[in-house]
């Protein structure tokens, strides 16, 4: 029982990591109707920027907003400079551009900051808040920040005209232009927001896994899994999905004896695919039906 609780809690803590990435994924999905494979590397790069700012002597609470702002600008810039020229190209071409961005960011970060791991400070401290270090202050803080981001995103998409315009532009750009939506800018805004959310996610994650250019490599996969499990159209679903992935993965690794930790990732993924087969648009996602 003790072990069970511990594994659940540690799963929740990991889940917060996945959830924060999943939020960024949902954000970009709403803006471009696609998964951005470079999302993780963008977050990693942002986190390095924050680290660099602190190395130059900036205090954490100053580096944070500066980084978020820079990341937002960076996201907008990537959309305007890299994506704009191929906006009419087929979807798969976009995927390849994401991959190009991925390798560029990863390699550039390695070149500038090298590949050794670096500690990243947490604003919440590491004191245990629950049990015997089962949940540290940082992890609790991370969960709180994720929930706050979730509420903000939910409100944004649900109640603001900009959120509506963004969804419309992603769903049907031609019609969106006809009603006067500046599709180029909503898309860029979406990239900016996704990049900003990603930078927050990166700064939450780095204290846990240490900062290095490859830190998001596998986390991104879990983030995808969480977002997809919860439903790509639903921020709440993404967060829920992230937590579920974290917990299920731990429990599968601990309690499915033959499997053991070796296969915990495949098991978690198989579970997700199984859920999707039953509920094709994720747990909380809205199903869009086609008719003729």
């Amino acid at each position: 029982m003790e072990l069970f609780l511990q594994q659940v809690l540690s799963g929740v803590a990991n889940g917060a990591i996945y959830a924060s990435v999943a939020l960024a994924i949902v954000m970009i999905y709403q803006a471009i109707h696609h998964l951005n494979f470079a999302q993780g590397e963008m977050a990693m790069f942002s986190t390095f920027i924050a680290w660099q700012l602190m190395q130059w002597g900036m205090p954490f609470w100053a580096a944070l907003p500066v980084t978020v702002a820079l990341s937002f600008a960076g996201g907008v810039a990537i959309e305007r400079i890299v994506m704009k020229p191929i906006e009419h190209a087929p979807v798969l071409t976009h995927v390849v551009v994401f991959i190009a961005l991925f390798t560029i960011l990863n390699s550039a970060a390695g070149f500038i900051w090298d590949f050794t791991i670096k500690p990243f400070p947490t604003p919440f401290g590491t004191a245990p808040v629950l049990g015997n270090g089962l949940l540290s202050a940082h992890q609790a803080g991370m969960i709180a920040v994720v929930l706050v981001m979730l509420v903000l995103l939910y409100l944004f998409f649900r109640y603001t005209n900009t959120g509506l315009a963004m969804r419309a532009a992603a769903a049907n750009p031609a019609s969106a232009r006809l009603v006067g939506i500046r599709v180029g800018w909503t898309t860029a805004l979406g990239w900016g927001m996704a990049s900003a959310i990603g930078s927050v996610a990166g700064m939450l994650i780095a204290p846990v896994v240490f900062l290095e250019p490859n830190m998001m490599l596998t986390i991104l996969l879990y983030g995808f899994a969480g977002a997809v499990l919860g439903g790509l159209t639903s921020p709440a679903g993404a967060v829920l999905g992230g937590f579920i992935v974290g917990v299920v993965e731990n429990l599968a690794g601990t309690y499915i004896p033959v499997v053991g930790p070796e296969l915990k990732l495949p098991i978690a993924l198989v579970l997700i695919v199984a859920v999707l087969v039953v509920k094709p648009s994720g747990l909380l996602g809205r199903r869009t039906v086609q008719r003729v």
Partner: protein
Amino acid sequence: AQTAPGVTDTEIKIGNINPYSGPASAYGVIGKTIGAYFAKINAEGGVNGRKINYISYDDGYSPPKAVEQARKLVESDEVAIVFQPLGTPSNSAIQKYMNSKQVPQLFVATGATKWNDPKNFPWTMGWQPNYQTEGKIYGKYIADNLPNGKVGVIFQNDDYGKDLLKGLKDGLGAKAASMIIAEVPYEVSVPTIDSQIVQLKGSGADILVTIATPKFAAQVIRKVAELGWKPTHFLNNVAISVGAVIKPAGPENAKDILSTAYLKDATDPADKESPAFKEWEAFMDKYYPDGNKLDGSTVFGYAAAQTMVQVLKQAGKDLSRANIMKEAANLKNFEIGVLVDGIKVNTSPSDFAPIEQLQMQKFDGERWHRFGPVMSGESS
């Protein structure tokens, strides 16, 4: 011997394969350090009047790419030898090719045990102490000093982890089965190993053996501290860098950790003052100024390159592949300044394991202190 492949009157071509891109790119530093060291040798006039033409390719840690690069080095660049190709999978992939082509695959950068097999693979030789040796040393130490301990192991689920684990069990001997109460593997694809540590703590172990690469080792050290768990902690040698592991994990969390060493530590004040490190420091400043001095890989590459140069020196005029291999198998008490005092490089036609000794060490919260005798897997 003037007609030996890759060798002219003025130069010798040495090939190398390293993961400059991809998931293992952190190790690319080794390939770069070697290049820098050869540049230094060239600047100082080369070896026996020959300059070293060092050609290093990226395999992204992918075995098929390693095969392609190895073939390119051998068939297109026509190098004399391939030196320090990195990674067990990549070296496994090219081993048969190198041996059938009779091209030295010299001083490979991996600690797997299988490189010491002169009968079947006379053209392949390891360099660093192999993982089994290291594991045996921990096993012996535990069996001798903590005979009533309950051992929990976290290990990376690949051949490196399994090799080291096997050594540990051998070292524990007959007691292995009863003493090891939990073995928990982790995959390199996991973001954190928190769950594994929770599990190990839950098992009731009071000895923790961590067989993990730097990033995960740092996570282990920190998580153990966070959980308030106080086992006797053994940390494998690949993760002892103070700069790249202990500092990020928090030096206070690493107090009393036990490990082994064969290279001195650039961050250790005492080691730093040694003439060998002064030399190293000068080398880094001059030939590899962007290199991170806190990164132990730079010391590793520096030492490996010195071994290579020694072999070339010994080979003298005859730089045929066979002679290079012969001399590589004829290193006698060769000393490298950055190796732990007392550890010497020794090879023979039946012993293709150049470095076989390690010394135990303990972290005091600031730096490592080596203690006890220099040990090999067999002795001590």
